[in-house]
């Protein structure tokens, strides 16, 4: 029928025009530094485009706050952060899905080899830039108990299962005035590879006779949950639970956290000042743009909280995508600035010592 024939022709025409429109220029790809015609009155060096980041859950709260502020300051920039964990973040970085990654431990030899074999940074390598120091809170949920002193050896015993009840002698000895119930201890750890696990096990290994530091939690007891957020929420909902998570997760969920012992034997409560005191004593090793911090667990001041971590940004030292480089340098410079670091305090993190801030500024400026 005539109608059928015209209908067929019209259908083909519509399909063809739809197909051809798909061949038009795709404006979703991140564009390089365009002179922003939208007239942002902010600093003259505002790039524009999209920055894709991934990595540690420990710095997730910091990044989300910085993201907001940076995007207000530079309206042409969109920053996306996928908090899938330190290990997964570095994998995303190696596979070119992230411009740089946040990791709570510096790049391991395996990871560095993968960067080279994948040619992620051209012929160069990736560097570590420490930007988000934080404290690890030992969160617990014991009815009618709001403060606890726990030594590194006791913590090692709890996370290895040798101390399995809250009214055990070891805990009672350290907390004579606490009303400890006869309740089974349920330790929670990170089931995914995590820098928080690495740093906390490092502390327990140095001062508590625990297994060697490992990003895959090496403890022998307890249950694993994926991500700091889930660990914190499991501790909150389970009576008798104990776990470790970055300090901002503890304050967000209103969890009680313990004072832990350091090399001096004193029980140091978790405050940002105490954590800053400890981080300031870390040994800094710098080679080129690469900066690594090694915490000094032998530091024996009574006001240094030893369970700390620092999140590194893993970025290519050379061989960055030229279109993304201004975005990467712009956001990293912002993260290192005093304005951003001061904001960290209100988010529950610890601001960088100024010496390290200065080192970072040189390192970031020399990225290519």
């Amino acid at each position: 029928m005539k109608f059928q024939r015209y209908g067929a022709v019209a259908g083909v025409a519509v399909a063809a025009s739809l197909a051809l429109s798909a061949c038009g220029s795709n404006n979703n790809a991140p564009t390089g530094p365009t002179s922003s015609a939208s007239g942002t009155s902010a600093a003259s060096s505002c790039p524009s485009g999209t920055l894709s980041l991934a990595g540690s859950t420990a710095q997730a709260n910091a990044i989300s706050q910085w993201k907001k502020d940076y995007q207000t300051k530079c309206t042409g920039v969109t920053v996306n952060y996928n908090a899938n964990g330190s290990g997964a973040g570095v994998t995303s970085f190696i596979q070119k899905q992230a411009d740089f990654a946040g990791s709570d431990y510096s790049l391991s030899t395996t990871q560095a080899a993968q960067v080279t074999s994948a040619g992620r940074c051209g012929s160069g390598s990736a560097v570590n830039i420490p930007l988000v120091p934080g404290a690890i809170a030992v969160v617990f949920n014991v009815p009618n108990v709001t403060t606890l002193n726990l030594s590194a050896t006791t913590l090692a015993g709890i996370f290895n299962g040798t101390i399995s009840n809250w009214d055990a002698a070891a805990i009672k000895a350290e907390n004579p005035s606490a009303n400890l119930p006869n309740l089974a201890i349920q330790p929670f750890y990170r089931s995914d590879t995590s820098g928080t696990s690495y740093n906390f096990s490092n502390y327990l290994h140095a001062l508590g006779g625990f297994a060697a530091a490992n990003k895959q939690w090496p403890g022998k007891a307890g249950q694993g949950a994926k991500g700091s957020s889930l660990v914190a929420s499991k501790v909150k909902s389970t009576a008798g639970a104990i776990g470790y998570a970055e300090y901002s997760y503890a304050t967000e969920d209103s969890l009680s956290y313990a004072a832990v012992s350091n090399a001096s034997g004193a029980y140091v409560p978790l405050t940002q000042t105490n954590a800053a005191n400890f981080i300031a004593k870390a040994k800094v090793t710098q080679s080129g743009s690469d900066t690594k911090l090694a915490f000094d667990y032998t530091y024996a001041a009574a006001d240094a909280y030893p369970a700390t971590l620092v999140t590194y940004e893993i970025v290519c030292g050379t061989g960055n995508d030229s279109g993304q480089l201004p975005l990467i340098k712009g956001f990293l410079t912002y993260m290192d600035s005093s304005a951003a670091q001061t904001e960290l305090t209100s988010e529950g993190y610890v601001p960088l010592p100024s010496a390290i801030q200065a080192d970072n500024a040189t390192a970031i400026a020399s990225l290519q």
Partner: protein
Amino acid sequence: MSTDRPGPAVTEAQDEKPPTPARAGLNAKAGLGDRLFGGSARGAAVFILILMAAIAAFLIVQSVHAISADKVNFLTSFTWDPDGNTTNGVPTFGIAAIAWGTLITSVIGVLFGAPVAIGVALFITQYAPRKLGAILGYIVDLLAAVPSVVYGLWGLLVLVPHMGGISKLIEDVLGWIPMFKTNGTYGSSIFTAGVVLAIMILPIIAAIAREIYRQTPREQIEAAYALGATRWEVIRLAVLPYGRSGVTSAVILGFGRALGETIAVAMVLTQVPGLVTRILQPGGNTIAANIAVQFGEALTTGRQALIASGLILFLMTLIVNYAARLVVRRTGRAGA
């Protein structure tokens, strides 16, 4: 009237002349369309076969890489550390613990889900008035539309904190069996995961069972009534035997779905090292949940090991489905 006039056969032969040119043109056009359509249909089928073969080959090659790099027995080891994070770089992984977890959670899911689903199907087809049955059927089908991740969230936030009471009750009654003993803690256990799975497979089994029971021959039901049977006896005598093989395959279909359920189980269960034999105590892992949790940060060997475990899951599901077909064939096709 003479008999040697050319008979009908000759005139018929004369009618079977070769087609006229116009008719030949029409045939030729139909022939081309025929060939095109037949060819593209055949091409689509061949393409699918090639695609499946390519995927299978890729999976098998990756798995072989992983299994040959494994330093322990792949089928009997309880640890999962293919990237050697805790074993100094030595790939150490095996599927024994996670395969066991997969089986036991699915069995619990079917144990709780199948009876309820069959009950719902019987109620809808035999007891409920037609309109109520239709509404109830619609609601049960809605259960299937809920995404798995929502089931996982509900299980994690609502079910896990409240499983303590029931778990304690079961432990008090059955605690002398080692499987039901606990160390006093309950919640994110294999049992809870099984309950969540039961709710997830309920709509599948109920939908198929409903269709099967609806097709019970009216004559058999009426004959049972005529013999003086009560409603329950009618169901026992006429409906259930008729639908037995079909409902069995529905249950096994639900079992297959439970075997592969990923996100809901990953959210409800917490991970513990080694083989989990206590189903009321928190902790456990299944093959699918393991893949979901580990895939993001797995390095090369890790990824290949996860693919190998996926192949094992695929084989398990194949065996289960094949067993289902055997059961259906053996019990005769009395049902649908």
